[in-house]
Structure formats: structure tokens, C-alpha cells
């Protein structure tokens, strides 16, 4: 990881990677969405609304994976002082917040015809809403620290403490059995979803993840360019 501590080396990799991720992500998303909307049959119980699965599940995964990345970047910054860790954390936060909000919105739209309500203070829904608020807090803290010229250590600590919410979201459907359904897909136990309904999901999962990664790389490049600009302006004022 420290091999990419040099921003020039990172940019050399990030420039082509951004285009590749965008292209692959768009292709997989188009294939997955086409499959999910036009090829898979309606569910015997939920009917057509089951198609919301193909965007709701990737949004939930990216909302949580985004914060896990922030926590990993925070450890990297606090322990090894990796120079790109704070940049990565700041770039992941808006993308993660977007997908956490999308997860809540699509879940609410799915909940109305399925549960008969837009919102319920259920364990899974509430812990996901808390994750969105954590993202907003992190974005505010990290940008305030950046403007004051800080290293972003407070934001890194916040990123680490906020990771406590991730197992709460994951196990919420087991701890509080209220409205949200239990786990449908497990690495160890497989899936309870019928295969004819399941196959577009890996396509949209990987597609959204590639798009997410491309957005993060672009935001990291923007952050690095701003740092370079500020350094040059400071140097020209000093001269």
C-alpha cells in the first residue's frame, strides 16, 4: 500500500483505472438492470416490486462498504500515517452517503406496497439512517479540518468510532425481529432467493461497485489537485 503513497504514482494508476471502472460498471449495470426489469419473472408473493431488489441491495452494500473503507483508511492514517489515507476517506464519504441515502429511499419505496408503510422505526431501517447521519457528520468534520489545514486526525477517529454501527446494521435483523426481513443471502448458507430471480443481482452489485470506485478515484484526483494548487499558491505568496 505504501508503494502508492506517492501521489504521482497513484495518479498514474488512477487515470486509466477511472475510465476502465466506468466502462465496465456501465456495461454490467445495463446488463443487470435489463435482466432485472425485462427477463426475470415477477415474484409469486411480491409481484413486480421484487425488481427493486437489484438496486436496493447494492445500495445497502455500498453504504456499508463505504464506511468500512473509511474505517480502514482511518487506521491507515492513524497507525501508518499513509499520506493518501485522509484523501481516500474524504473521497469515499460523499459516495457512501449517496448510496446509504439511496438504500433508505428505495427501501421506503419498496416498503409501501410490501409492508403498507413508507417508514417504520425498525432496527435495520433505524441503524441505516444512523449510518447516513454518520456520513454527513464525517463529511462536515473532514472538510472543516481540511479548511483549517489539519491532518484529518479527528475525522479519522470519528471514522473508526462510527464503524461500531456496521455490525449493528448487519445483525439488526437477528437482534430485533420487527419488520425488515432476515438475511436472504449468506456466504456460508447460500441464498433463499430463487435462482431465476437472483442472477441479475451479482451484475448490479459489481456494476454499482465499479461505478462507486470510479467516483472515489475522481474525487481523490480532485482533492490531490486542490492540495497541489494550494501549495503552489502558498509558495507564490511566500516568494
Amino acid at each position, binding site marked *: 500500500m505504501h508503494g502508492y503513497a506517492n501521489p504521482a504514482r497513484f495518479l498514474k494508476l488512477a487515470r486509466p483505472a477511472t475510465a476502465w471502472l466506468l466502462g465496465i460498471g456501465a456495461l454490467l449495470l445495463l446488463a443487470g438492470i435489463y435482466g432485472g426489469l425485462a427477463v426475470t419473472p415477477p415474484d409469486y408473493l411480491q409481484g*413486480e416490486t421484487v425488481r427493486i431488489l437489484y438496486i436496493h441491495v447494492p445500495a445497502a452494500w455500498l453504504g456499508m462498504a463505504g464506511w468500512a473503507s473509511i474505517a480502514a483508511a482511518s487506521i491507515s492514517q492513524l497507525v501508518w500515517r499513509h499520506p493518501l489515507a485522509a484523501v481516500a476517506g474524504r473521497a469515499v464519504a460523499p*459516495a457512501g452517503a449517496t448510496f446509504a441515502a*439511496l438504500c433508505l429511499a428505495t427501501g421506503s419505496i419498496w416498503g*409501501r406496497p410490501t409492508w403498507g408503510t413508507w417508514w417504520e422505526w425498525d432496527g435495520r431501517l433505524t441503524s441505516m439512517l444512523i449510518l447516513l447521519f454518520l456520513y454527513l457528520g464525517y463529511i462536515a468534520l473532514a472538510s472543516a479540518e481540511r479548511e483549517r489545514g489539519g491532518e484529518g486526525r479527528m475525522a479519522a477517529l470519528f471514522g473508526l468510532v462510527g464503524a461500531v454501527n456496521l455490525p449493528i446494521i448487519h445483525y439488526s435483523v437477528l437482534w430485533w425481529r420487527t419488520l425488515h426481513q432476515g438475511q436472504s443471502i449468506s456466504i456460508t448458507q447460500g441464498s433463499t432467493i430463487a435462482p431465476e430471480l437472483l442472477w441479475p443481482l451479482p451484475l448490479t452489485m459489481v456494476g454499482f461497485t465499479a*461505478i462507486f470506485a*470510479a467516483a472515489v478515484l475522481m474525487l481523490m484526483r480532485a482533492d490531490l489537485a*486542490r492540495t497541489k494548487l494550494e501549495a503552489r499558491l502558498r509558495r*507564490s505568496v511566500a516568494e
Partner: protein
Amino acid sequence: MNQWTFVTAAYGLAAIATLGLIAWAYLSMRKAEADAEAVKRRP
């Protein structure tokens, strides 16, 4: 309400959020890199 109304609303929202994120990230990157380049070229 027709079930497809909910499906369309969810997919429409996903399209707006994803395209909005990509457009915002791209424009931020282009602007920041252009500004840095302009200052670099300044005598």
C-alpha cells in the same frame, strides 16, 4: 397504485443518484485539475 409505479420510482431515483454522483465527481476533478494546471503555467 400499480406496482410498476414503485419500481419506476426506485429505478428513476437510482439513476438520478448514480449519474449525479458521477457527474459531480467528474466536474470537481476537471475543475480542480484545470485550476492546478493554470496556476502551474502562471509565470
